Structure formats: C-alpha cells, structure tokens
C-alpha cells in the first residue's frame, strides 16, 4: 500500500524532473549551433582574376575552401581544412602543391595526400564558371 507521503514526495520529484527537463530542452536548443548562411553565400570571384598557377581561399557554405587554377588553366576547388587535425591548408604556388602549416601534410591539386600525417585526401568541391564568375557547389 502506497502511503500519502510517498505519493506526495514522488509527485514533487516528478514535477522537479519535468521542470528540469523543460529547462534542459530550452537550454539545449539555446546552445545548439546556428547554421551560418547555409546556401546563402555565393562566391563571387571573376574567373579572369585567378591566373594560372594561382590559388585563393574563400568561404563556401560556411566552410573554408581553396580554389586553384592550374598551369593548364583548369579550376580545382577543395575543402581547405586539413584532414589531419583541422588546420587550414594553403596553396604553395612555387611548389605547386597544397601544404598544411601545422604538421607539414602535403596534398596534390586533386586533394590526394602527397606526404605527411594526413590520413585522407582533401574533399573536392564542384567548381565551374558561369557568366564570367567562378561558381562553387552542386549546381555547377
């Protein structure tokens, strides 16, 4: 037989838990990361501004992205975050390779690992030219 006190104590505890759950839900939502400009940002670089051999870093859909034009004039775009420990990689124009300044990982133009500790290639990003402007993303 459950007595009145047990019911009272359990009810208060249940109310407390409900209040905690509500507060937790509000707090968790409040602290959840807000997507920053997903799909809103457009990379606006005139195609002719990027000469053969040059590279530029842009932010595409919230992610740092490298756009490189090779010596033959073809465009390449890769995520600029090193697959080793997340540092930002840079295009070395003289050595014609992508380098990570943190732990010397090196990548080829297509993202494949040339050397260093990086476990995976850099992910490619679709790139093209539309009306004289470089376009990144699925549409191109």
């Amino acid at each position, binding site marked *: 037989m459950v007595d009145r006190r047990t019911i009272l104590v*359990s009810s208060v505890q249940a109310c407390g838990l409900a209040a905690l759950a509500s507060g937790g839900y509000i707090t968790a939502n409040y602290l959840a990361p807000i997507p920053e400009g997903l799909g809103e940002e457009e990379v606006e670089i005139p195609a002719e501004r990027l000469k053969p051999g040059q590279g530029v870093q842009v932010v595409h859909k919230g992610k740092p992205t490298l756009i490189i034009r090779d010596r033959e004039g073809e465009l390449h775009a890769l995520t600029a975050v090193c697959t080793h420990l997340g540092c930002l990689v840079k295009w070395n124009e003289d050595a014609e390779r992508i380098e990570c300044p943190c732990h010397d990982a090196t990548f080829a133009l297509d993202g494949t690992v040339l050397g260093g500790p990086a476990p995976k290639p850099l992910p490619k990003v679709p790139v093209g030219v539309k009306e004289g402007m470089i376009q990144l993303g699925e549409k191109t």
Partner: protein
Amino acid sequence: MSGLFPKTASWLEERIGLGDLIKRTLTGYGIPARATGLPFCLGGLAILFFLSQLLTGILLLVHYVPTSAGAFHSVERITLEVPFGWFIRGLHSFGATTMIIAVMLHALRVFFFAEYKNPRELHWVTGMILLLLTLFLAFSGYLLPWTQLSYWGSTVGTETLRDIPLIGEQCVQLVRGGTNVGEPTLHRFFALHVVILPLAFLGLFGIHIYFVRRTGQGGPPTIRPGEPKYPFFPNHVAKELLVFAIVLFVLTLLIIFWPEVREEPADPFNTPKHIKPEWYFLPSYQFLKIVSPKWFALLLQGLAVMVLVLWPFLDRSEERDIRKRPLLLAFSILAILVVLGLGVWGHYS
C-alpha cells in the same frame, strides 16, 4: 530518502553522507511556526531569482558580444535568431525587476515586523547592502544591450555623480572610463555586471545567511520564546519554491504576451526625447530634479541611505510591535508614500 530513486539516494548516502548533511543544515533547522506565510517567502524568492539571473545571465554570455560595435547586434541576434533566446533574455530582464521587488518587499517586512532589533541588527545591515548591490546590478546591466535608451539612461545616471562636491568630475570619469559613455564604459559595466557585483552579492549573501542562522529568524513581532518551530526544509523551502514557480509562470506569460520592444542601437550623437531611468531609480531621479543645489540633493540622498543602512542602531526602542509606535508607523508610511509619489512624478514629468 524515498521517492523515485531510493537506490540512487542510498548510494549517495553511503558515499557522501547526503542525508546527514541535509539533516544538519536543512531539516534539522527550524523557523518560528508563525513565520511561514507569504511575507516570509520573499527572501527565498529573492535568492531564487538571483540564481535564475545567474543561470540566464550565463546563457546570455554565450551569445553576447561586449563591444560597442557588437553588443546591440548580438542582443538582437539573441532575441530574433537564437532558439528560445527571446525567452532567456525576457526572463533575465523581467527577472531583474522581480528580484528588486522581492528584495524591497522582504526589507519592508523586516522593517515593519522590527526583525532588525537586538540581536539581529546585522541581518538588516547586510540585507540593505544586498539591496544596494541588487540596484547596482540592475543599473550596470541596463547599459549592456547598447540601445539608445540604455546608452542615454546610463549617461544621465552617471552624470548625476558630477554634482558631488570637489571630486564629481573624477567620479564621472572613473565610472565611465572617459569623458563620455563609450567603449570603456561598456567594458567597465560588463565587468561589474557579470563578475564583480555577482561575486560581491554571493559573498554578502553567505554572510547574511550566516547571521540569520546564528541568531535565528525574528518572525512576527508578537512572537514569544518557546513557540513551536516549523521545519525549514522541506516544508518552508517547498512553499518558497511554489511561490517562485507561480511568479515564474506569470513572468512567462508576460514574456510571451508583452515581449521586449525592438529598440534603436545607441547613437552617441543623437539624444532621444524623454530619457528616464528605470522605475527603481525614478524617485531618486525626480528628487535630484526638484532639489537644488544638486550637491545638496545628493547629500540628502546619501544621508537617507546611511540612515536606512544603520537604522537598527538608530532605533533604540525595544518595542517590536509597530502598531504600538504610531509616530514611527505614520512616519514610515509617509516616507514610503513620498518615495512612491516621487517615482510616479518622475515617470510622468
């Protein structure tokens, strides 16, 4: 320890002696049985709202940017973009007002029940300083959204210090961190609001509670020694939590149906019309407006605050029942009416 989690409770009890700790500090502590009504829940309500302010303040810090360039936009972002940001900000804003009201009403109860008398003088002194800290907390937080109202309200508020004889200008510059309210003022108020004043409040609150525990709660003036006690925990705390829950519910309704009005960002080159301080500074604001010279008005206000803080040492009568002291009763009610009248006058002037 029963309830939903008996195993967890006994596990904790075995390791940290939770039950023993609770018995020594909470359930074993009794308050006068006649000191358990709504007026005796106001102190608990004030501290529960302080904790709520602490929690919502920490959450606001996650998104708030304490610079003149970023403050306004970060508060806009919290209100308009962050999930439940409007609620957290509303609770912090309404919570500040509620906390001030709770502390004031708590102080009024202690005054009218003469609970400050021997040996409880220090309850009152620490309590009055806590009330002042609460007001400073509210004032320092008012600037942080960096809106036109908060900017110019803080300008007017800090400007009053200029009338302090001899050191007025230095006081204004010290508070502002410069000649005008600007970036250094925001940084100073931010440091005061989120670190210095809350720490001071918590420390003094600990001392306040120590005094209350040491010499006991006064209760109504007609109380006699040997009257039955009432368990502070869980009985009285449950009452305080219930009052807190009801007030929180009312605030939630206010936040939903009376949301913050969108404001303009601070513009140091454009003073809007009718700049007034928040309601709790209106009596002081109106008093400064009508009494001249200003240094005299400031002196009178300073004296009034000193009298209030040191009141237990000025009131030497042993009679606790204010109904048997008609002169004090009449003077107290008159003083409250004057303060309220000045506030209303300040609001409509």
